[in-house]
Structures are given as C-alpha cells and as structure tokens.
C-alpha cells in the first residue's frame, strides 16, 4: 500500500498531533481557562439567521424546530469545548424523521444540511435524496455498487432515505434490501465524520422497521416526529405559498378554501402541505381560464387575485358535506 517511509511519516505526525492535543488539554486543566463567548460564537456562525428562516418559512412543526435548535446548540457547545481543549467526542447525528406525507420531512432535511454545514459538522452541506430504487439492485451483485455510488455522492453531506422501511422486506428472505442495509450500517458507523444519514417515513412502519433492524435503532440518535398540520396551519401554509408566487386569495376565497380543507382532510390520500399546493395549483388553473374566458382589460390586481368561484369549482364541493361533527384532524384509519 504505502511505502514504509510514508507510513513512518504518518505515524510520526499522528503522534505529534496527539502530543499537542494532550498538551492543550493539560494546559486547559491547570490554568483557569480563558472564558469563551458563547453568544458571539453563536452570532458568528450564521446559524441564528438560518433558524429564524426555519421559523418564518415553515409553519407549525414546533417539536421539530425545538429539536433542530437543540442540535444546533449541542454542536455549538461541542465546538467551544474543542476550542478550550476539552476532549469532545463527535456527536452522532443520524436521524429518523417520521410523519405523514407532506409534513415537511424533506424540507427540514434540506435545512438541516445547511445548518450542519454552517456549524462545521459536515463539510459540504448538500442533500442527496434516495429511495429503495436508488439503493437496491435487481440481480445478484447489483446492490453493492449501487448503494456505494449513492453513499459516495452523499459524502460530506446528508443522505436522505425516503420511505426507508421499503429497504427491508421480511416476506422475501432473498431480498437484496438486506445487503443495502448492511452497507448503510457499516458506513453509518465507520464514516460518521463524513456523512449524516436521515431515514424518513410513516411513523408506524418506521417503528416496525427499527424493531426488525436493531442495528439501525441504536445508530440513530435523534427521532423526530412530524405532527400533522391543523386547518389554521394549512391556511398559513397556503398564504405562504401564494405569497411566493405573487397570488392572493380574496376574503370569500379564503373562506371557501378553509371549507375545502375541512372537507379534504378526512378524505383518503390527504398529504398535508402537498395537498394544499395541488389544490392551489388547480385554483390557479381555474383562475387563468376564467380570465381568458372573460377577456377584456385586466388590472395587475385581477391577475394576482384568486376568487371564490376558482376554489368552489372543486369536485369536493359537489359531494355531500362531511358527517358532523366536522373532523379537524383525520384519524389515521381514514387516511391509510
């Protein structure tokens, strides 16, 4: 592998490094260490701005935001401890995000990558999204290179595995998913410095997955559960989305949209924020055809405004109203 001379040089440098670390550590213990300014380091790290952005751009999700804050503080303190010479073990940051569709798992993962990058935990701060198809091959010997390829792309960043439980198929004992799981576990353990793995999926199925793969459970330090959005939060999300696209709902349309959401939530395949986006996209479609149909002169305000009829044309309003009492949050049975 390496020439003896080179190997010798490496041992020498690592010895020196260890000696200097020890020297630093002992000096920190003997002399009263110089105080370090927590708030200044915090302000310098660009993280407050990122956390504020997270607060303003993501509606609700309080438990998740709190957890992200905690992780940010932990990393900041780890950094300060390193500076004063206290030996600090690198915290394990593999995470699992559980929650229903459209609750913001991917978005938070993306923000998480940026925050970890600014705190110096990962070197590049990019997010690689993978599903079973990207990791598991179709024939013998196909899986390892595929998984390796994805892992290599994610080095220095965050690997986000969506619907991770599909990797494990207990009903087929010759399934190649197991091979991918084993490779993932090795890399999660040996390359902790290079990669952060985030596993995401529905809560119940993730729990089964962790239960049947205890190796994963012990290597994932943070379990974040994404709650469903309330109607108010979904309205706030709709406003935020429309604001970005320079549209707005007028007052009647807002009321109609709220009614729409109340009808939509108990229906099957409701996907929180994603359903809101799709509903708004359809409303924009109807607004456009209404404007074209009417013709004539329009003001810029007219171009931005979505009115009640655009929302009310949804097929949901043709169906009988939901049974009373109107459920604000669908039960899990209604949505699976």
């Amino acid at each position: 592998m390496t020439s003896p001379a080179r190997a010798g040089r490496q041992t020498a440098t690592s010895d020196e490094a260890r000696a200097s670390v020890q020297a630093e550590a002992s000096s920190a213990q003997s002399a009263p260490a110089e105080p370090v300014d927590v708030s200044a380091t915090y302000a310098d790290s660009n993280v407050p701005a990122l956390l504020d952005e997270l607060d303003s751009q993501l509606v609700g999700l309080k438990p998740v935001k709190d957890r992200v804050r905690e992780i940010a503080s932990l990393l900041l303190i780890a950094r300060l401890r390193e500076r004063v010479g206290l030996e600090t073990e690198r915290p394990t940051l593999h995470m699992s995000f559980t929650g229903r569709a459209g609750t913001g798992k991917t978005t938070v993962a993306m923000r998480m990558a940026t925050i970890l990058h600014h705190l110096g935990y990962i070197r590049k701060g990019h997010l690689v999204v993978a599903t079973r198809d990207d990791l598991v091959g179709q024939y013998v010997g196909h899986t390892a290179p595929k998984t390796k390829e994805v892992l290599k792309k994610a080095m220095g960043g965050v690997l986000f595995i969506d619907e991770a439980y599909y990797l494990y198929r207990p009903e087929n004992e010759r399934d190649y998913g197991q091979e991918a799981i084993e490779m993932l576990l090795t890399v999660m353990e040996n390359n902790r410095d290079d990669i952060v793995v985030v596993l995401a999926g529905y809560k119940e199925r993730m729990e089964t997955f962790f239960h049947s793969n205890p190796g994963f459970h012990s290597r994932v330090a943070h379990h974040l559960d994404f709650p469903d959005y309330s109607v108010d939060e979904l309205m706030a999300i709709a406003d935020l989305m429309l604001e970005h696209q320079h549209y707005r709902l007028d007052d009647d349309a807002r009321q109609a949209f709220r009614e729409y959401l109340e009808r939509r939530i108990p229906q099957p395949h409701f996907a929180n924020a994603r359903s809101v986006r799709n509903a708004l996209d359809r409303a924009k479609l109807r607004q456009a055809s209404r404007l074209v149909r009417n013709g004539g002169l329009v003001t810029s305000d007219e171009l931005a405004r979505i009115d009640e009829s655009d929302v009310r044309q949804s097929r949901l309003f043709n169906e009988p109203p939901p049974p009373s009492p109107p459920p604000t949050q669908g039960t899990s049975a209604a949505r699976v």
Partner: protein
Amino acid sequence: MRITQGTFSYLPDFTDDQIEAQVQYCLDNGWPLLIEYTDDPHPRNILWEMWGMPMFDIKDPTAIMLELNACRKTLPRHYIRISGYDRSLGRASTMLSIIVNRPPEEPGFHLEREGGPDRQMRYTLRSYAADKPSGERYQ
C-alpha cells in the same frame, strides 16, 4: 528506477492529505475523477485498467479516497493513478493524473539496441517487470 509519469511525478510521493487536496481541486473544477491501475508501466502503455466506473457527481474528496484505499488494499503492489477529466466542450481531455501508489521495488527498463544495415541503430524499451506474466509482477 522510479517511474515518472503524469502530474507532479518529479516530486516526492504525495501523502494522503496532499492527494486529497488535489482531488478537491479537481472537484472544484467540476472534473470527474477516475482510478486506474496497471502492472505494466511502459511509457507507451497509456490505457490502464479501470478501478470501477469514473466517479461523477461527487461533492467530497472522502468518497474518492475511500475508493482509492479500497484499490490500494486489493492491489498493494500495482501502479495506481488518479485522473481528473475535463468533459467540457472544446477540452475533453485529462487535466491531471497523479501516480498515487507504486510497488516497493521498481526494477526499471532494459534498453535494447538492434543493429541494422548501414550501422543503423533501433532502440526498444522493455520493462524488466513485464518479463513475468501479468499478475505475478512485483511480488
């Protein structure tokens, strides 16, 4: 005889940190990297065996170093080089190629002189290592 081919070949062998820095330079320029190996370092043997596929879309040098170390582990006594390739239109060429592993002993080359009519002289290079069949060289 120490083989000198490619970039920086007249400098002492790079340490892993230095190699990583070079890899980072390639990635910063958007050049995909590939790892190749051979046990026949004849200067005209330019097509070496490839270690896996060329590595596209890599963001961090650790991934390349991981592959390189796997290759070194499998082929500790081969020549291994790492190349950065610029695929942009108008360039499409190898931009950087460093030998990152070499056998502990390099026997060098034999210069063969062949006399022809009218005192003409033809020269041929033959690697001593290549006398043995492939796979048994540099044991």
